[in-house]
């Protein structure tokens, strides 16, 4: 297992900057969704996940599934930083003939599951968690979903299943940024009280600040939060986090920064060069 010298804060800065460059270059959407989870991914890939780029298929590795597959750019960025493939390949994101699809593709080294149609990841994660238990592996399965994504009935079918089967090696992280595709999450299908819902399905639910690395690191290092129960981490986040003019703006679910906006954003994320 590779030891990472960088702090998760540095890693978060770098993957924010990389995703900004990627979506700019590809004129792609979903930058807000990427920035929302950059801190979660930075902590997961620097502290939490027992994955090894040199031996990426070890059967007892931890699994990570980005169920909100539209934030693929930031996942590809963190995988490159973590050494799964050379970072220069990120320039192929969304290009003709590339494996770096706009939504998570398992053709990319380190990506466990192709996603993009919302509401699929938690069921697959539950299957992996069940297999790991049967095979007596110490594997933990982390599934990151959007809060809008939790509109999908399949999320709740998986939640019922995992609670029933006491899959305490399964962790659902809900990126609770309050926005979804065409409105505020509370205006579309109000999910609150979200943590209570997971509890009612037999999960141990923990609420954290999804941009506070200490809080993220602590909760993820302590799974299962309760023996015999899957863990739901409700991460309070800001869509577009780190770039002032993108924060909490639905338009940045769709827009791609132009050259000028990219420079402004990079100054905010990386500091003046």
């Amino acid at each position, binding site marked *: 297992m590779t030891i990472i010298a960088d702090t998760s804060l540095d890693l978060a800065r770098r993957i924010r900057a990389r995703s900004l460059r990627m979506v700019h270059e590809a004129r792609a959407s979903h930058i807000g969704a990427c920035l929302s989870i950059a801190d979660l991914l930075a902590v997961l890939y620097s502290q939490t996940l027992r994955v090894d780029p040199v031996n990426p298929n070890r059967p007892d590795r931890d699994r990570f599934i980005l169920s909100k597959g539209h934030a693929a750019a930031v996942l590809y960025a963190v995988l490159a930083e973590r050494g799964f493939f050379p970072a220069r390949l990120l320039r192929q994101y969304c290009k*003709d*003939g590339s494996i770096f699809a706009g939504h998570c593709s398992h053709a990319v080294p380190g990506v466990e599951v192709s996603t993009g149609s919302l509401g699929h990841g938690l069921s697959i994660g539950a299957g992996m968690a069940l297999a790991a238990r049967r095979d007596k592996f110490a594997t933990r399965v982390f599934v990151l979903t959007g809060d809008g994504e939790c509109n999908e009935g399949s999320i709740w079918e998986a939640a019922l299943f995992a609670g029933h089967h006491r899959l305490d090696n399964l962790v659902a992280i809900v990126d609770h940024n309050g926005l979804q595709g065409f409105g505020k999450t509370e205006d579309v299908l109000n999910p609150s009280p979200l943590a209570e819902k997971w509890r009612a399905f037999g999960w141990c639910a923990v609420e954290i600040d999804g941009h506070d690395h200490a809080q993220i690191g602590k909760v993820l290092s302590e799974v299962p939060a309760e023996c015999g129960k899957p863990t739901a981490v409700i991460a309070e986040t800001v869509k577009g986090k780190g770039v002032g003019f993108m924060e909490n703006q639905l338009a940045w679910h769709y827009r791609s920064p132009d050259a000028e906006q990219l420079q402004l954003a990079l100054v905010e994320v990386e500091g003046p060069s």
Partner: protein
Amino acid sequence: MRTAFVETLCELAERDERIFLLTGDLGFSALEPFAERFPDRYVNAGIAEQNMTGVAAGLAMSGKVVFTYSIANFPTLRCLEQVRNDVCCHRANVKIVAVGCGCTYGSQGYTHHGVEDIGILRTLPAMTVVCPGDPVETRLATRALAQMNGPGYLRLGKAGEPVVHLRPVPFELGKAILVRDGSDVTLISTGGMLAEAVAAADQLAAGGLSARLLSMHTVKPLDKLAVLHAAEQTRAIVTVEEHSVIGGLGSAVAGLLAEAGLPGIRFAMHALPDELRATVGSQAYYRRLIGDLVARVRAVLDADSNIASPTAGEPIGQMQWK
């Protein structure tokens, strides 16, 4: 096509109080005109397509004319059994609208490729499957579907498709539009490939081949007469679609031709190969993979060659299963 659809739906809703629009959390900077003008008949049902489709069926069973709206496979495959059992089985007056079909969202990856939808929806009894070829056909199809009672599927591209029909065209569900007449070969196109088919017919004409071009906007019910006439009056038929070679317009026409048992008719399908790829690309990239339409037409007309390969397009690497 998206703009043409929304504008037409607004016009229709102005006159018909029964029209409802449900969206699966999509339509930013597209559906606002409807949402603002008809707030009581507009619902963002959230990212929950199964529920949205069931609710649409319930509204329809209570006398409403319901349009459901989302992208690619989400309003169809993501909730296929609701479409089959709740909508089709009850002949509920629900029109499913999918934008970004075919390879519109090519670089977004396999989850966003709507390339099996025609084949799948075509197998559902009571379902009318409509794939307009340009914004003009989109307007006409939206009107026709709103007037028709029963399940319908409107398969759209995204935005900015070229207008093919510069003059008014007759439009009837289940009736192909004769875009131009010809005697050597018939191109039968569905959906957004129409502009490519026009360009191919131009090129063929420049090379001395006379191509008839049909826009088969309704894949189900298929305009059998138009196909059979083409089979009698021209030497070959080539179907053109941004869809898998399995199950789409090509399959529909092939089945009809085989059943009719007409002697000597040559036939080829210009469609996406049935395969998974590790790589993605733009819509233009996928259209290049389908191959060169003019070359395919020439091959099928060439008396010495065997039937043109239906699945041509160079495989450039299979999905790497890890």
